[in-house]
């Protein structure tokens, strides 16, 4: 059994639309007040860093059972983090059964693993928005470091171990260019 905690960092999500809307509001107010001139709105970097949106902080906890050859027998995974799309116009597309798909993307696809995934979305006052690659910013970090941990714990080369994980599902020659042969083979190609 391996028990592991990991977390990815929070960063500033750039939501330029905020300042555009603010500029429009100020221009409209200026016009209403009788000012007939262009209005320039400028956010300093300090404004931007302190008044923008932020990538939601995520905490992952995984308990993984695997045998001496690295075969994963059970994977119990919990993600905690604010939902990005709840309360936005995207909620209807992204949130199902209370789970925001932007928090879990990149978790299940990479490897055919027997995983139980639990998600908690705490409600906090921090304004959150996506960062480049959204959920993958934390799921890729957690999954790829955990896969390495399993390889290390079972004394296997991390590349050979990944190839074996892909290969279990799609036994395709690793270095052949993909001709519509499924995403596992694409991954093998990228890794080759």
């Amino acid at each position: 059994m391996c028990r592991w905690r990991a977390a990815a960092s929070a960063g500033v999500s750039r939501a330029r639309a905020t300042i555009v809307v603010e500029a429009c509001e100020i221009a409209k107010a200026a016009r209403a007040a009788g000012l007939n001139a262009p209005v320039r709105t400028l956010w300093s970097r300090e404004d931007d860093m302190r008044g923008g949106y932020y990538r939601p902080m995520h905490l992952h906890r995984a308990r993984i059972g695997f045998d001496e050859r690295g075969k994963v027998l059970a994977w119990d995974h919990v993600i905690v983090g604010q939902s990005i799309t709840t309360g936005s116009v995207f909620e209807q597309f992204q949130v199902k059964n209370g789970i925001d798909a932007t928090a879990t993307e990149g978790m299940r696809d990479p490897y055919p693993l027997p995983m139980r995934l639990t998600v908690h979305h705490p409600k906090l006052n921090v304004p959150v928005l996506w960062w480049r690659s959204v959920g993958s910013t934390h799921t890729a970090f957690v999954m790829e470091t955990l896969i390495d941990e399993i390889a290390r714990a079972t004394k296997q080369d991390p590349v050979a171990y990944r190839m074996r994980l892909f290969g279990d599902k799609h036994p395709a020659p690793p270095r052949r260019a993909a001709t519509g042969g499924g995403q596992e083979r694409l991954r093998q190609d990228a890794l080759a």
Partner: protein
Amino acid sequence: MDKSGYGKTRLPDGRAWGVAVHESFDSVVAYVVEASVKDGRPVLHRVTAGVHCNLAVNPRTVEAQVQGAAVMGLSMCLPGSAITLKDGVVEQSNFGDFTVARITDMPEFDVHIVPSAEPPTGMGEPGLPPLAPAFANAIAAADRQAAAPAAVQSDVSRVIEYRASKRRAAMEKKKHVTAAQTKNRVRPSRRDLLAKIALVGAVFPFGSLSWAASAQPNNTNNQSDNGSRAGDNKMKTRKLGKLEVSEFGSGCMSISANYGPPADRSQGITVIRSANEKGVTFFDTAEVYGPYTNEDLVGEALAPIRNQVVIASKFGFDLEAGGLNSRPEHIRKVVEASLRRLKTDRIDLYYQHRVDPKLRSKTWLARSKI
């Protein structure tokens, strides 16, 4: 993998390999990196990227996207790159107290694209996710190689522990904020309100807005505009068959349709005319833009200068019955309507907007002389 020398090349002492692969936006990016720890700081020395995005339409763009994403991924790994909250306020304010990767942090970089002729997949963001785990895995490996038992705690776990503790601390602070400061919000209420507007506003692209905005400098910038026209920056022209058009054409669609609500009509007309004043002589529209309203707008804007410009429009849809229609009798009907809207007696370039699969091309080509 092959290109990086992984498993074949012996690295200098202190350096170690790290690998990660991730799929996002239907593309796969794998990194093989070389990293070490210097003075307690993780250092990224070399990155070899394997990219599978099916057909790479412009391989240099793919390379640039992957490099940029990797630098961003490197930034998020460096100490001091976390946003933290204290009493509901962000503690960092500028680059003095927030780390981003600098030129001295930049690794050697190679991008290899897996050849493919399949339809292209996403190639903006997929370079970001696998960089941090590849780097972390390399640091963990470097640390094991250093094998100073008990003396050096795994740097990656230190990094992770550091981040986790910051996170935990920040999480507690945030909880505190939620519980204790329901009135004192994290942001000023002005921004709070605007933010809500922004979220709604974000779904409307700014195509028409930018068109409308570009019409504004009518009074203020005229002098410099005139200057540039009179000078060497004269618009070049090129031949389109028998037509001679400006090298820059104006696609007019977004003034009326498809990029948010239509722009103000008089502003749209001003934009088109000022484009012509700046040397543009080629204007593109279509029956389906609006539908109809864009041709109408372009027609009104260009009527006074009709003989100085080239107008392109398009047929091919059946806007009443729905679907595609390029039958000769339909073209004859809609071209008359387009001419009326465009307030002109000729359309200089008339495109088929979509191929009509019901017709063999010869059928309408043979009869489409207008």
